[in-house]
């Protein structure tokens, strides 16, 4: 990192750059945040189209639209795109946009590195997309890329591995930026144990990313060398072990689940107090719960491997550890409900999505407890029950919280109000069709339908048809969101500085829309827990 980059970080003494250059050479955290958010939305739509292809094929038994090989490519790329292209960049984008405003920093710590972190993503996404048209097609081994299946694929697999390297690098750089910004650039008075939960969640997530993304990069590199350079890491014939792949992958993979969930916890912990007009209940225990989830997430990986035939002692250890993680997660849910309790609640769109998040995430969490019991997991592993479980955690968890965040901060970001009517329609529509899509998958899994199959036995027909209809309607509903955003960006009513009367964190104390260069001079703050501003003096902004 060059010294000039540091010098860039605190800039802001010249006007807004114009045109394409503003985006290509963006160093402003708000511009980069917007790039991240638009990019992840495009990825969300691409991954969504793949999901709809999957659901179309599964609408009825038999092969209608896609051959099995292509179907497997769809399931694989749907997973990879949603995880690495949509959810993770969306949270990074949200953190980029809001963190400096919430903690009183002038910008992210390394502005130019921030630019690189983002601009690595489009080439990686292009690699993934282009892999569909190379001979042999895209990777078709599932997003987990289990060896030795992943050593069989064509060059689409190499492109996927390369894309994962690039996206991993991007997220590591983004995380370094987040950590340094939070640790070093907080305004005076914004102490760690007072800062907003969203900052805490982003901080812990960033540490998780730095700890596990290199591990993922390592393990896919091993697959690459097994494929092309004659190594035998995962090939039993050469003294390797295919189970080793799974151990290393899930050492990354389970923390990854929390990388996608913790920022959601942070967002909900900002939104609920604002609309309950009541301080967050149990701030300190929220911080401890979030941290302990982060630590525990490194000790549960092998619950993804209960049917690989590990010794009973190992099964029991990972079963207990996994059950244990339900405790801090439960504490968080109880804290949110206690925050709502005796509040003075109103239900604008962000609050609706936050409440919907709690409801659905609780279902996903409880089905997770069921899955954690190794003896029951024998029936459920690799079935549609697992598909239902992780979509309750990731769609209802990550996606709903992201919608809550975007609706919540939209006025501050754009200076305009979104249409509340369309926002509410978007919420109720999504809630209904999400459940229609994914709830029946619990039944399918229990009844014995394996996941990742392009065709199924006749007794699974009805629930698959329900799920397919639900998926298409859910997908359609996201166009309401897109329309609402695009229209409100141009024609939304001007937003006041404080559109939510219960919102009391730092970002709501600056003008609306947020000035291009906010806090070029750090403010003097007196804050209460969860970043609630008691007194603010100084703090200069520039356009």
């Amino acid at each position, binding site marked *: 990192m060059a010294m000039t980059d540091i010098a860039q970080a605190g800039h802001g003494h010249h006007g807004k750059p114009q045109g394409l250059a503003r985006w290509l050479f963006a160093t402003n955290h708000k511009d980069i945040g917007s790039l991240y958010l638009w990019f992840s939305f495009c990825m969300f739509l691409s991954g969504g189209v793949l999901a709809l292809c999957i659901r179309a094929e599964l609408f009825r038994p038999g092969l209608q639209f896609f051959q099995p090989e292509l179907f497997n490519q769809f399931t694989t790329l749907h997973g990879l795109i949603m995880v690495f292209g949509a959810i993770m960049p969306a949270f990074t984008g949200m953190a980029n946009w809001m963190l400096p405003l919430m903690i009183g920093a002038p910008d992210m710590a390394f502005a130019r590195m921030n630019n690189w972190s983002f601009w690595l993503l489009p080439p990686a996404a292009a690699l993934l997309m282009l892999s569909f048209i190379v001979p042999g097609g895209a990777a078709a081994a599932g997003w987990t890329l289990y060896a030795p299946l992943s050593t069989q694929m064509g060059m689409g697999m190499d492109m996927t591995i390369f894309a994962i390297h690039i996206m991993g690098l991007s997220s590591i750089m983004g995380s370094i930026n987040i950590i340094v910004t939070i640790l070093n650039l907080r305004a005076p008075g914004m102490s760690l144990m007072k800062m907003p939960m969203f900052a805490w969640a982003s901080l812990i997530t960033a540490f998780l990313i730095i700890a596990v993304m290199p591990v993922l990069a390592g393990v896919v590199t091993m697959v690459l060398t097994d494929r092309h350079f004659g190594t035998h890491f995962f090939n039993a014939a050469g003294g390797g072990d295919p189970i080793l792949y799974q151990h290393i992958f899930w050492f990354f993979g389970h923390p990854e689940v929390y990388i996608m969930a913790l920022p959601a916890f942070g967002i909900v912990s900002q939104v609920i107090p604002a609309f309950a007009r009541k301080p967050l209940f149990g701030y300190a225990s929220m911080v401890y719960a979030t941290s302990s989830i982060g630590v525990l997430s490194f000790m549960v990986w092998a619950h993804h491997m209960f049917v690989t035939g590990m010794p009973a002692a190992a099964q029991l250890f990972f079963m207990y550890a996994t059950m244990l993680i339900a405790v801090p997660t439960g504490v968080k849910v109880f804290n949110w409900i206690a925050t709502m309790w005796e509040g*003075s609640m109103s239900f604008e769109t962000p609050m609706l999505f936050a409440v919907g998040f709690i409801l659905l995430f609780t279902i996903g969490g409880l089905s997770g407890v069921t899955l954690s019991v190794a003896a029951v997991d024998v*029936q459920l592993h690799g079935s549609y029950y697992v598909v239902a479980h992780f979509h309750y955690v990731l769609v209802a968890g990550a996606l709903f919280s992201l919608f809550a965040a975007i609706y919540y901060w939209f006025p501050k970001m754009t200076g305009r109000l979104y249409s509340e009517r369309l926002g509410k329609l978007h919420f109720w529509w999504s809630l209904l069709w999400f459940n229609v899509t994914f709830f029946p998958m619990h039944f399918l899994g229990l009844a*014995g339908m394996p996941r990742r199959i*392009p065709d199924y036995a006749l007794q699974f027909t009805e629930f698959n048809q329900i799920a397919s209809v639900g998926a298409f309607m859910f997908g359609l509903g996201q166009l309401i969101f897109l329309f609402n955003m695009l229209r409100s960006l141009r024609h939304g009513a001007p937003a006041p500085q404080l559109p939510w009367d219960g919102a009391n964190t730092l970002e709501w104390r600056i003008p609306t829309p947020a000035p291009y260069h906010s806090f070029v001079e750090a403010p003097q703050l007196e804050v209460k827990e969860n970043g609630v501003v008691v007194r603010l003096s100084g703090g200069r902004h520039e356009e």
Partner: protein
Amino acid sequence: MSLGRVLGITLLAWPAAARAGEINLQTPVTALARVEYDLHTTLLAITGAIFLLVLAVMLYAILRHRKSLGHQAAHFHENTAVEIIWTLLPLLILLAMAWPATRAVLAQKSTRGEDLTIKVTGYQWKWRYDYVDDNIGFMSHLATPREAISGTAAKPANYLLEVDEPLVVPTGRKVRLLLTANDVIHSWWVPQLGVKQDAIPGFLRDAWFTIDKPGLYRGQCSELCGKDHGFMPIVVDARSPADYALWLAARKKAAAAAADDPARVWTLAELKSRGERVYSQNCVACHQATGKGIPGAFPALDGSPVATGDKAAHIAIVLNGSKRNTAMPAWGKQLSDTDIAAVITYERNAWGNHTGQVVQPAEIKAARGAGQGA
């Protein structure tokens, strides 16, 4: 099914759908599956109760503590006693759940005292069963015709859950499975038996079951293993010990009779008809019934240089697999000389290929090894 009817079910007819399909674990027929079933029911009750409780409290707050009702916000933001209670209470509930869960895990792992051992080997995309005590073994392929899958023929009742050779086992006997795989990881899952175990290439795993009553129990591979992962079902045919003994005796006799005389000279028609069967079991997934393959992924055989040109090259690629396309395995390992001779003869005389050439089992025997070091 019309879109209207699907919408109807979607919107108001959960019960209708529930009638049509199952919504719970399949009816257990082994002690293990019963334990799993009951454990799941317990977990469902506990987690369901927790969910309802959380929902009730949240709903109460949502309905009563609203600004629109003029409710004033309280200002509490912590309560140590409450926080300790709701940390410890879930912990106690989890401890209570861990006890039966632990016992069930230990039961699943107890593979001792078996009456019968069967070795299960996963292949892309079929299963092989070897009755190691009795020296018989066979491959088990999907029996649903390709036409039913592509929609040009009606779908049978057990669509995708039927095989040509089910795994036959006696009831009331402890059957131990030794599992491994030939190529990638597969997973052997029969819900009613309560058994799911990964089959891992190069490694040995085991699982066990004792079936209560005779019947056909169906399952599927549950670990993504490539293209036809969805098309490698498992059927277990449980018979009374007496019936099982009869089956075993007949099977052994048939195995002895079917042992092909390697020196026998076959006619074109004989080999073609046998080859067609071998083709439909092993080759059709990639090269297709039409012999046209799938452009870009799997080469056509109809009119291809390999299937119409040099016989030795054709034999070599079937025996040893393709170096360029790893999807083409070395069939020499899986199929007998006679089966390979038959399928090659078939491929050279099917569709638009009319070479009229016959490949005899003796030629395959000669070719084994000769081409392998290359």
